[in-house]
């Protein structure tokens, strides 16, 4: 008896792995990952450079001078950093070194500490720059006392080492960054990967009417108007400035003007005289405005601070935000460093749930299609003369389970190859894998075993539903109507995916755990929690019991439905079949006889 089930399963397996759908399914996995990893970057790159203009009405254009300087500081800061990293690769050829360093930066891990160091260097640079100091590392020592925030010796030494090369670097940089040639600027921007230069290109501004014409023609993405007095007057010390109620629509208190297609300007009242004008269709992309606002804010703030004669050191100190050093509570109440891998590990179940969902849904769907096909092919009667309906159903379900497992196994091999091979070809990717703990995730037995068990569980559960549906339907179209409730059920674990991963032991997670149709997805979802042994035990027993029951019901429906032709039976009839004892076949008179 088992042999015939095996034969059915084997045919099902062999025939299905020969289909294109199977190979597409297998290749989907690496393709999806490659696409997911590269496309956002490509999109970012593909986003065309935004031309913007600024009508600077400030005195002698000081605002935009400060702005240009200001926007270059982050770029320089990043370049410093890369310069520093590129040290071992030799600095003779800077662009090459930088491009390598870029990888390093993207891949590197100690981001928090580095960000701090970078901030300090940035402060350093600003100070030096404002003071008009030549970049002389020896002289840097003299300035150390003036730096308002504490810098550790080794960090200071590192900064000094950076400054050592700063003179050459500055010349190299200025030549390119201030070049009128767009391509040269772009090449620098590419190295830096910064929003300031790469994405936005400032063009000469003449007259507002001209700008409007450029805007309408699409040459210009947007233009800014900087008022003659961006800083404004400081209120008298004993008379505090009246508190303005912030207007959420206007953001940052700057005026924003939308243009409709007719080119007519809808102007909002503007307290400071700052104005941002763009076309209606550009309103959704706020990156440029946000970027301009961020830097503009700092400039204005700095000027205001200066205007009340606060020295720049204290000003920096005022500007300094707070930042948390993140710890996690480890064994024995010890504080441990939070690594990126820890966070990734918490979110990893989402990927697994999603893959699980795709696997279960795909496999169950193939089963449905095959059953209907077999039925409409009339092969079914030949088969039933050799095997029992139950053997046929079991064989089909098992054959496709084997196919699903093969697919999953192939994915696992791809993932493993990815971990092993990618670092051989792409420098620095090993550190990404280590940083995100990808290898740890993929080899985590809890995730792997859960995935396998819940794939089988979920598949068997939904397979039994769909094989029953397939047995009573004569065409896919009919089946689609009956599929709707199943699809509705299947959507719920997807909707619950993020809430559960954020609170893997919360009420929602705990409740859904015990709903057998959700158990496989929810338990996979909670794997980072992880659930208690008792929860695993009870939910698994419940799931197995439900599978057993669903299979039993499906067998009853399958046995009768598979031989039926003609109109799809009504739900009430199907319920009748479920109650019918083995051997009796309550078929409607109209469809009973086909000869």
């Amino acid at each position: 008896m088992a042999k015939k089930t095996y034969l059915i399963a084997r045919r099902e397996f062999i025939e299905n792995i020969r289909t294109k759908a199977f190979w597409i399914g297998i290749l989907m996995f690496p393709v999806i990952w490659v696409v997911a990893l590269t496309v956002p970057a490509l999109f970012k790159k593909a986003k065309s450079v935004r031309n913007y203009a600024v009508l600077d009405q400030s005195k002698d254009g000081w605002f935009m001078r400060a702005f240009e300087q200001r926007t270059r500081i982050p770029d320089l800061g990043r370049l410093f950093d890369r310069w520093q990293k590129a040290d071992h690769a030799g600095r003779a050829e800077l662009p090459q070194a930088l491009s390598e360093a870029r990888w390093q930066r993207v891949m590197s891990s100690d981001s928090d500490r580095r960000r701090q160091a970078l901030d300090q260097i940035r402060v350093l640079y600003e100070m030096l720059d404002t003071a008009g100091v030549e970049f002389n590392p020896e002289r840097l020592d003299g300035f150390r006392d003036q730096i308002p925030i504490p810098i550790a010796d080794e960090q200071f030494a590192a900064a000094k080492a950076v400054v050592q090369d700063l003179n050459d670097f500055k010349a190299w940089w200025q030549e390119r960054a201030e070049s009128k040639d767009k391509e040269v600027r772009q090449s620098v921007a590419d190295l830096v990967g910064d929003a300031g230069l790469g994405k936005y290109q400032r063009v000469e501004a003449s007259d507002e009417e001209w700008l409007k014409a450029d805007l309408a023609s699409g040459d210009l993405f947007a233009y800014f108007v900087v008022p003659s007095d961006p800083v404004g007057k400081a209120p008298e010390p004993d008379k505090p400035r009246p508190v303005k109620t912030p207007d959420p629509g206007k953001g940052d208190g700057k005026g924003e003007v939308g243009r409709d297609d007719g080119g007519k300007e809808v102007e909002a009242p503007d307290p400071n005289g700052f104005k941002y004008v763009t076309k209606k269709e550009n309103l959704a992309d706020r990156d440029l405005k946000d970027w301009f606002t961020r830097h503009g804010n700092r400039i204005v703030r700095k000027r205001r601070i200066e205007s009340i004669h606060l020295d720049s050191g204290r000003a920096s100190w005022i500007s300094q935000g707070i930042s948390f050093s993140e710890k996690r509570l480890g064994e024995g109440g010890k504080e441990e460093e939070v690594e990126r891998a820890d966070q990734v590990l918490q979110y990893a179940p989402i990927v697994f749930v999603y893959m699980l969902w795709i696997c279960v849904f795909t496999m169950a769907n193939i089963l449905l299609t095959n059953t209907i096909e077999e039925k409409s092919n009339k092969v079914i009667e030949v088969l039933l003369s050799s095997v029992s309906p139950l053997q046929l159903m079991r064989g089909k379900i098992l054959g496709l389970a084997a196919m699903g497992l093969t697919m999953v196994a192939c994915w696992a091999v791809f993932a493993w190859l990815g971990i092993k091979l990618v670092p051989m070809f792409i420098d620095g990717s090993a550190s990404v894998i280590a940083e995100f703990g990808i290898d740890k995730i993929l080899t985590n037995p809890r995730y792997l075993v859960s995935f396998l068990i819940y794939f089988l569980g979920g598949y068997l559960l939904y397979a039994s539903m769909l094989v029953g549906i397939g047995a009573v339907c004569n065409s896919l179209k009919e089946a689609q109507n009956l599929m709707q409730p199943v699809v509705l059920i299947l959507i719920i674990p997807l909707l619950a995916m993020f809430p559960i991963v954020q609170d893997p032991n919360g009420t929602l997670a705990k409740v859904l755990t015990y709903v057998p149709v959700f158990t496989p997805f929810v338990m996979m979802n909670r794997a980072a929690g992880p659930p208690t042994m008792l929860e695993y035990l009870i939910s698994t027993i419940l799931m197995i019991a439900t599978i057993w029951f669903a299979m039993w019901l499906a067998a009853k429906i399958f046995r009768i439905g598979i031989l039926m032709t003609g109109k799809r039976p009504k739900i009430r009839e199907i319920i009748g079949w479920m109650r019918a004892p083995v051997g009796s076949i309550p078929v409607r008179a109209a469809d009973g006889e086909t000869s």
Partner: protein
Amino acid sequence: MSSTPEPALAIDHVTKRFGSFTAVDSLSFSVQPGCIFGFLGPNGSGKTTTMRMIMSIFYPDEGSILVLGHPRAEEIKDRLGYLPEEKGLYKKMKVGEIVTYFGTLKGMDTHTAKERASQLLRDYGLGDWIDKKCETLSKGMGQKVQLLGTIVHEPDLVLLDEPFSGLDPINMEVMRDTILSMAKNGKTVIFSTHVMAQAEEICDRIFLIYKGKKLLDGTLAEVKSGGPRAIQVDYEGDVGYLRNDPTIDRMNDSGQSAEIYLKDGEDAQDLLQKLVGKVKVRRFDLREPSLHEVYVRAVGGDVDPFTASSVELR
């Protein structure tokens, strides 16, 4: 195969109902081993249901079925072959593979099944198609492949539901030869058909089912003997003028020959006299009725000498 003298198939008072509709009504018959059993009846009379019950695809509501001596065919499914009325193959499977597959499902080991499948396919002129997909086959070829799938495991009892439908004359010949050679090898063949000539040609025994009930059961000679004798006339000309002759009960005219049934008490010599001079008589003989006539009379219901109750034609 079964060497016992017991019947290859014994059906005893089998009833099958679908809801309020009785498809098979207290049916009984038996089939001896090595017999070619013609299972006849109009559409919807319960042939397919009976065959499905024999194959234990359906189960009877009442009565018992002994297949090769076993009460349930499930246990000996491997010794049975069944060609359903609606024929279908897996479109994407190769011809050789599917015959092999059907063989293995009947308990053959893969190697033997494969050899036997390609042997059969070659014997039946399908050698070039072994590695082609089923979807490339014509309807008749598909049917042949399916027949091979049914007999690849050399079953002791074969049920063929409408095996001749849709076949060209050559393939009909092939089908007929297959059935005959199986019987010669001691296998039992049960087949249903609507074409009486075929049944008459090869059947050892005839069973006529109508509305789920038995109408006729017996050897060809037995079945025919019960009916009136027929006058077979081969002629040239037109016998249409006889159509309203009061001495003639029925006439099956096929243009150049006619089967004429006289009313009780009428003399064949009178008929001969009526023919002479009007048409050129090439043959005039008295013989048993054709199976066609037996069938039509039994089922037609206008004259019903075999059953007490009169039945209506659908």
